[in-house]
């Protein structure tokens, strides 16, 4: 466990710039979630930290030591691959034991059996230990892949969408488990996900990547409550932030071209009229699809709302975000 520093990392694949001058400090014990659509550079960042790829420029240091030219084994990092990458010629038990038998650790058999047992129990795959790695469902493979990382206490855990193939219940359980491991071990996590809930509940820090550039880095609340751009604002929040022309409402500052309204930034009950086009009852909340002067927007209302489509709702912005023509925040 140690602080991870990425300084001015740049990586090209052919003509595409996968990472563009990314600098980031992952504090000791932090849980950093990287957000961004496919191709934003999330996986590339993990691979550069792991040592599987070499940067074209810039460097990585772990605990103050420059590891840019070191192999993955020398860096002592654990990684959960998006494609699982289980060893197909081994059983689940052998897969989980493989890192512990490496020249890096060389645990004895009793230690290996204990560690593998613990991790298998936690991931609910103990009954599959003697299966071939190929004789598993997608969700089970993914859990073995997580287990292969968790049997170790590395300098950093790198996880690439580790919960994507699991069902909702297991995913919720493992979110808590991973968070516990991070809290107890203090090992920093660098974690890629598309899942909003994972990002909001697990992250101590969020890094927003856009076309290989780190556009914002901060706590999930900072990103949510103080986004630097339309892009960063759109990464977090369900339903997504509504982006509308700024002149739809009064009070836009000069230079603002767009107004950003999260559901809680739309006050209902006074202001201008909008028409309800659809009502979605989700149980704990109700989503309202509104038509406001020919623009669609989505907000949230009381779970027991009696509103029906065709009803009129008055709305007014409440401390909204404003953005300029390029999408950057205007204060």
């Amino acid at each position, binding site marked *: 466990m140690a602080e991870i520093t990425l300084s001015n990392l740049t990586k090209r694949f052919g003509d595409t710039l996968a990472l563009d001058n990314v600098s980031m400090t992952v504090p000791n014990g932090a849980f950093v979630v990287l957000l961004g659509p496919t191709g934003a550079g999330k996986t590339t960042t993990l691979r550069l930290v792991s040592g599987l790829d070499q940067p074209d420029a810039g460097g990585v240091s772990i605990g103050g030591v420059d590891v840019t030219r070191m192999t993955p084994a020398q860096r002592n990092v654990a990684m959960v691959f998006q494609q699982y990458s289980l060893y197909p*010629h081994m059983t689940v038990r052998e897969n989980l034991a493989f890192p512990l038998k490496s020249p890096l650790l060389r645990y004895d058999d009793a230690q290996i059996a204990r560690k593998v047992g613990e991790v298998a129990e936690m991931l609910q795959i103990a009954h599959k230990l003697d299966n071939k790695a190929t004789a598993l469902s997608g969700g089970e*493979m993914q859990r073995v892949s997580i287990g292969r990382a968790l049997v170790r206490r590395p300098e950093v855990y790198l996880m690439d969408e580790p919960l994507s193939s699991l069902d909702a219940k297991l995913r919720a359980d493992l979110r808590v488990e991973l968070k516990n491991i991070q809290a107890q071990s203090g090992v920093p996590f660098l974690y890629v996900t598309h899942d909003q809930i994972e990002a909001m509940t697990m992250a101590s820090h969020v890094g927003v990547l856009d076309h290989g550039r780190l556009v914002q880095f901060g706590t999930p609340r900072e990103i949510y409550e103080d986004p630097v751009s339309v892009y960063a604002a759109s990464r977090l929040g369900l339903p997504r932030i509504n982006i509308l022309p700024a002149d739809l409402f009064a009070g836009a500052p000069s230079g603002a071209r767009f107004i950003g309204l999260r559901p809680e930034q739309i006050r209902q009950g006074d202001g201008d009229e909008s028409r309800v086009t659809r009502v979605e009852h989700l149980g704990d909340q109700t989503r309202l699809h509104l038509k406001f002067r020919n623009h669609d927007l989505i907000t949230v209302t009381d779970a027991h709302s009696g509103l029906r489509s065709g009803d009129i709702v008055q709305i007014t912005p409440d401390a909204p975000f404003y953005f300029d023509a390029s999408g950057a925040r205007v204060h």
Partner: protein
Amino acid sequence: MSGYSITEPSPRQKWVAGALVALYAIITILPLVWIIATGFKSSADAIAYPPKVVFAPSLEGYVNLFTTQTRQTAEYFAANPPETWYERIVQSKGLTIAGPSRFGERFMNSVIIGFGSTFLSVFLGTLAAYAFSRFKVPLKDDLMFFILSTRMMPPIAVAIPIFLMFRSLGLSDTHAGMILLYTAVNLSLSVWLLKGFIDEIPHEYEEAALIDGYTRFQAFTKVVLPQAATGIASTAIFCLIFAWNEYAFAVLLTSGTAQTAPPFIPTIIGNAGQDWPAVAAGATLFLLPVMVFTILLRKHLLRGITFGAVRK
């Protein structure tokens, strides 16, 4: 389950498929059965016309194959009655065993040269194929083409330069020389076949092993090799079959010490008239190692391509 199914063949289709397989099996197995049967015939039965399907089995061919014999007088036999079953077989023709033939020695030469060159071809081939498959090798495509080009003409086309080279290097009629030659011929096949197999192994497995604390070479031996087993086994079989059956170079380059079985077996005919049972016996024994080797590696061949645990 009734009527029409896409996945299950109909009984009629099964019957036709079975008949075709049986026909093919008969065509390919018949010459083999003929050779094996001839090995157990007496000299007279072997050349009988029409050929005998039912015959009294005899080990005459095998005894002739492994021994050299000389003619003896009736007085000699009266004084030295045959003691063993094979001496009795020989005596019935008025002969006595003078000593072992050179077949055993030639056979061993084949084993040493065949398996030696197979091991070397597969060992070097796997390392080269891995490098070509995984690393940035300068002029990779040109090198691969060059390697393939060594097989663009029949190897025997360069027999004379090789003969001269071997003579001046002192490699003629040596085991090392023949192993080297067969390895050189097989290596292009081995590199190309194995590169194909290794290309099919996703490099994610090695990356996982690198992350798990292993070096590149350890990842190669612990993760890549087990998964390349199918490819290595089939490549080894191809290499062995070539080296084992090779005749032309063996005739040209070996004689006294390193001669293999293929050039030796035809010489059996000349020793004592047309001794077809002995030739057939030699051919039968000669077939065995490749058969055994193939059966031993069958497990790996049948396993085929492993369905991986990598999400596509």
